[in-house]
């Protein structure tokens, strides 16, 4: 476990060094927001809160899948053997989960800003919405990191990543959409406590299972 911090530091410094990946993800988000903006450009009034909700979470889902997919897919061959020899799989998993969580959270926040800028802001209860963003980002990163580890060992891993992750993250997505709807309808925050707790429970579940299963997918 004491390898966690150096590994986390490595993830960040590596990311700062290859800025193209980070920039690519940002551009991905930007283009997606623009596509949505242009598709609706003359019909701003068509973007009802429900449509906004659906479009926003689809954008976030695809961005998260692409962000987390690269945590194992596309790493240099043999690099995993090197990691295997210096650190425990659990430390590697958690360093990736934490790192991906922060990345997902930043991208989700950027996505929200872009949506507010280009479309409109139907959100009333900002605090609950931010909590939802944080919890779902963590859920995405915890489940997708393991799946990225599985998909990276297979051929056509990019397609596989989407196929494997979709059914698994859908429960997170359903709860998140539900809470977002509450935030838009300006309901009292206490209404959203139960689904928020549920989101937290799903996060804990997914995290625990990843922790148990990752060592098995890791060894070659």
């Amino acid at each position, binding site marked *: 476990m004491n390898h966690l911090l150096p590994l986390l530091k490595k993830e960040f410094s590596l990311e700062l060094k290859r800025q193209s990946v980070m920039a690519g993800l940002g551009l991905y988000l930007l283009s997606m927001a623009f596509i949505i903006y242009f598709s609706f450009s003359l019909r701003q009034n068509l973007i009802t809160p429900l449509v906004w909700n659906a479009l926003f979470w689809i954008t976030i889902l695809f961005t998260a899948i692409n962000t987390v997919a690269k945590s194992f897919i596309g790493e240099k061959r043999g690099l995993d053997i090197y990691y295997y020899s210096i650190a425990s799989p659990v430390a590697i998993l958690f360093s990736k989960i934490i790192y991906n969580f922060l990345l997902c959270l930043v991208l989700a926040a950027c996505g929200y800003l872009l949506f507010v800028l280009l479309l409109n802001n139907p959100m009333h209860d900002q605090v609950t919405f931010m909590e939802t963003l944080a919890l779902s980002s963590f859920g995405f990163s915890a489940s997708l990191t393991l799946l990225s580890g*599985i998909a990276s060992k*297979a051929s056509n891993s990019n397609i596989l990543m989407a196929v*494997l992750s979709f*059914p698994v993250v859908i429960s997170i997505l359903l709860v998140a959409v539900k809470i977002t709807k509450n935030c838009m309808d300006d309901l009292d925050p206490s209404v959203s406590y139960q689904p928020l707790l549920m989101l937290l429970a799903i996060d804990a579940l997914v995290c625990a299972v990843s922790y148990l299963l990752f060592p098995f997918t890791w060894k070659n």
Partner: protein
Amino acid sequence: MKSTWWKIACVVLLVYTAVGGLLFDVPRLNIVNETIRALYFHVPMWFGMVVMFSLSVFYAIRHLRHPSVESDIFSVAYAYVGLAFGILGIITGMIWANYTWGSPWHGDPKQNAAAIALLVYFAYFILRGSVANDEQRARLSAAYNIFAFVAMIPLLFIIPRMTSSMHPGNGGNPGFNTYDLDSRMRLVFYPSVIGWILLGLWIATLRIRIKLMEEKINEQEDEKNK
């Protein structure tokens, strides 16, 4: 599992289900009417699916703890049969919904959850198809099997209960509990559940035996070629 008594029991129970399920008297309820007989053919599919997938996950866990070719073969065979049960469950449900709800796909939470559960296991087989190394395929698919099964728990058992549904047993619609007084239906329903599960086990054991034989033949050929 090589004895024949449970196979005979399976045949007897299913013949009884088919005859009793179609001919015995059932309670008259509005809208549902005679389609209530779907209880004997549609609901046991989900019981069968859950049992098969649980067995599949059980062998997946066993495979991760003590890797062996056998446990992988067992796990896949049960997943196959579970998937078949799930598809039959969706189809029988759609036929039923067509007559009672008015359209085969009604976007009901239970229908959607069932469809997603099937997607998970389709993804499982796609994963198996795209890993070349036998040992790695067994290990990765076992891990995905467990992960997907756990991730499905909130989807199948919690979220549908948080939302309203038109499915019998939800939101004031008559479900199985309404028939508590009607022991005639239980007389057919319980045997049918056992019968269908036994049939699933039977199909799975056949698949397992074929695969084990293939494995043996491969081994012998490998030795010959040495």
